[in-house]
């Protein structure tokens, strides 16, 4: 395999987007996509953890025996999640509070473990880093799109700034969990109409 493939970066953003194509990590997506600010925090945390865990796992992939790989992956992921947990608590307590339990729950997030198992444990450091950034960006992009639709319809605001004015009657269900399902469903349908289905085969 070549040392460096840009494809690893772009794949996660569109073609194999973790949310719209792999359908992984929907739990934090449903929970924290009601407002753009929290979504941005979650996306940032995600990129950091995914990059860190992918690089570390690619670095140690040759010394880790197959039968202990899953606990090793989880320890590596948990380390990065805890680092971001402490840092957010210290520097951005409001975002930390809103992400709540979903931040520590990233430890068992299927995107992280999935990329560790499916990609980083089989590829070199550079490709794994690219994959981590790509998948992280893909997740961030997805959560930002969903959050902007939900916040716009559900509260009439974007980043907490009123867009539709005071007379807008909020479409409340959009900021509740079912709203996330509606938006995800529509977006997946739209993405598939752009040939997502063909790529799947």
């Amino acid at each position, binding site marked *: 395999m070549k040392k460096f493939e840009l494809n690893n970066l772009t794949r996660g953003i569109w073609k194999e987007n973790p949310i719209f194509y792999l359908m992984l990590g929907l739990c934090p997506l449903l*929970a924290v996509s009601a407002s753009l600010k929290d979504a941005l925090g979650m996306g940032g945390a995600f990129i950091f953890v995914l990059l860190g865990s992918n690089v570390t796992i690619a670095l*140690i992939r040759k*010394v*880790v*025996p197959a*039968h*202990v790989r899953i*606990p*090793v992956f989880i*320890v*590596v992921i*948990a*380390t990065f999640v*805890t*680092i971001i947990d*402490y*840092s957010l*608590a*210290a*520097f951005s*307590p409001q975002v930390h509070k809103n992400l*709540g*339990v*979903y931040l520590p729950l990233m430890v068992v997030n299927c995107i992280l473990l999935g990329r560790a198992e499916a990609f980083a444990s089989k590829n070199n450091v550079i490709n794994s880093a690219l994959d981590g950034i790509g998948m992280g960006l893909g997740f961030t992009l997805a959560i930002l799109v969903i959050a902007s639709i939900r916040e716009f319809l559900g509260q009439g605001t974007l980043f907490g700034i009123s867009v539709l004015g005071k007379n807008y009657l909020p479409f409340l269900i959009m900021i509740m*969990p079912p709203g996330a399902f509606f938006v995800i469903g529509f977006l997946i349908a739209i993405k598939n109409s752009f040939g997502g289905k063909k790529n799947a085969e």
Partner: protein
Amino acid sequence: MKKKDIIKGIIVLLSVTLLSGYLLAQVYSLTKPKIEQQKKIEEERLNRDIFEEGVKFSEDNLKEIPCTAVYDINGNLIGRIFTSQVRGYGGNITIKVGFDNELKIVDVKILEHTETPGLGSKITDSNFIGQFKNKQGADLYLKTDSPTGQVDGITGATISSRAVTEGIRKLQEQLQ
């Protein structure tokens, strides 16, 4: 599985966890002072939320219970804020209760909790926590627990609502 493989697995797992532990200890000691500072800011914000006309806050105690005394702009004591920890459904809940000089509850705020998102976390909603406002010597029981109870619990989160109610009631009893 060969003995050698087992030993290799143990060594790898052990060194990964040790390294991770060391790294986290470093990060923890770096961020700890900042996190504590943030907590203090949050506490002060809540104190001001409870007593809107409070200007000066200082350490105090009443009946040997430590609390924060609140003074208004003229330097008069207008009340005290007590912090108390109760056991909720998903861990400890830290509540702050503001009493005025006649031991009337001014307001209650939740400082920290780890209740289930969407259910127990509703204890921070004003629909629930606002019920305690302006109560004085009231029967602080859930309506489902006592016929004279005056507090509406949260549907699906009885344990959390009961814990908070009990915490406030105990404080009230201790002070009387």
